[in-house]
């Protein structure tokens, strides 16, 4: 996925980005919950061309049994990219990157899930990236947190995530694949706004201290918008039934 080939222009003369967005603009977002019948909770989240489905099972009997804890539920997470999600076929076997992202996503969600309410059980999250166009880990965190809420698992807050990048020297919100490949930096951030906690912060590339601070506040602003959509999505499911 590295930045191969000739570098395209990322910021146009009018200050807009290669896809016409302003630097602090999110991609078009679509969210849906309860999309999978067999899962206890599920969500579909779309950020532009990045599409992710998350399914939650549990709390259920921990398998294998030795992983169970008498103090809390074990949270398990599998992040996986479908072979058809990328330009070139991706091998369906879990790669080093996917194993790492599974861990990072799990750790982004652990602080909000009330695992201590369900001792000796496991809560399993399955995340499938259907179409990848940058920002799959942040989209996955957003989708997984919705799916957990859809399953009715008590959570202190929802987690929303977005990445900030630096493209042609400009800080840009919600970077896509092109900006990730040819940009100078990529910083995914996940946060639980009402808990006032950042649960994921990574940085790939170079940012100055000031750029980092500015980038973080830009990310938190984006997270605020995503968080609002998440809550609306959760509530809409019931308002619809009521409207019938």
């Amino acid at each position, binding site marked *: 996925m590295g930045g191969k080939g000739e570098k395209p222009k990322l910021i146009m003369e009018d200050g807009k980005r290669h896809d016409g967005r302003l630097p602090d603009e999110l991609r078009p977002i679509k969210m849906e919950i309860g999309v999978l019948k067999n899962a*206890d*909770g599920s969500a579909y989240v779309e950020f532009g061309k990045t599409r992710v489905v998350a399914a939650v099972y*549990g*709390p*259920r*009997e921990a398998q294998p049994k030795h992983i169970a804890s*008498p*103090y809390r539920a074990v949270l398990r997470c599998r992040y996986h990219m479908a072979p058809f999600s990328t330009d070139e076929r991706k091998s369906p076997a879990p790669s080093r990157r996917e194993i790492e992202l599974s861990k990072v996503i799990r750790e982004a969600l652990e602080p*909000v899930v*009330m695992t201590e*309410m*369900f*001792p*000796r*059980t496991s809560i399993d999250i399955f995340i499938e990236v259907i179409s990848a166009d940058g920002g799959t880990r942040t989209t996955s965190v957003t989708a997984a947190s919705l799916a957990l*809420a*859809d*399953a*009715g*698992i*008590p*959570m*202190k*807050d*929802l987690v929303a995530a977005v990445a900030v990048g630096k493209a042609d020297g400009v800080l840009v919100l919600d970077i896509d694949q092109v900006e990730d490949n040819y940009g100078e930096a990529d910083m995914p951030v996940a946060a*639980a*706004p*009402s*808990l006032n906690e950042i649960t994921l912060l990574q940085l790939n590339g170079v940012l100055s201290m000031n750029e980092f601070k500015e980038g973080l506040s830009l990310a938190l602003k984006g997270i605020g918008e995503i968080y609002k959509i*998440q*809550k609306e999505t*959760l*509530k809409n499911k*019931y*308002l619809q*039934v*009521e409207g019938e």
Partner: protein
Amino acid sequence: MSEEGSKKREEKPRTLVAPGDLLARGEYKILTPTTVQRRGDSYYALVVGLATVDDEAKTIKLIPLQGPYYPSVDDLVIGIVRSIGLTSWEVDIRAPSPAILYASDYLGRPVNPARESLSDYLDVGDVIIAKIQVFDRTRDPLITTRGKGLGKVTTGAVVEISPVKVPRVIGKKGSMQSVLEGETGCRLVVGRNGRIVVNCPNKDLEEIVVLAIRKIEAEAHTTGLTDRIKEFILTEKVRRGLIGGR
């Protein structure tokens, strides 16, 4: 939120909330500790549900709209036998782990596994009404069938609904359940784990009760439901020619 139906009862306004929503600040009593959390002097929602904040009585209640069944002692549950051991049955009660029912508890006498097989009494797939006797974080739930109304189910049908909708099917002080039973003549046993055993005089009434339960499940978060269910049962009865047409 719809206002209809909430006039006659002194119902406090209920708001639809999502995890992380601030419910109130100050000193309140949490009536549903599994769905509301206090942080400092603020109270936050933990689930998607309907919150009632009573500023006079200083109480907060949040009824979830979705969620798993997690056993607690003394719950009435409806279980399905999953497997048979030498001296006990493993029963599925829709909890994270299966429940254990000892043969000596069910039969009320000691059993000798060398002489008798437990499948003679309860086989895989049999439905039982039981109570949770012991459950904590160190063990699987232990259930008992000793008590009034408990034991093997021999007639009727089992309906499964979401466990969080169970209080709605029972209603305030059993009001919804008595409407269902009174209007159809069926007998209901509502398990906390979201399984309901219905015993009806005939097939038509059974279908009506099942449809009514499904309707309660789908519209559990709306107000004035009891009246609508009454109406629903009536129209279904007319439609099936059980009453009217005179």
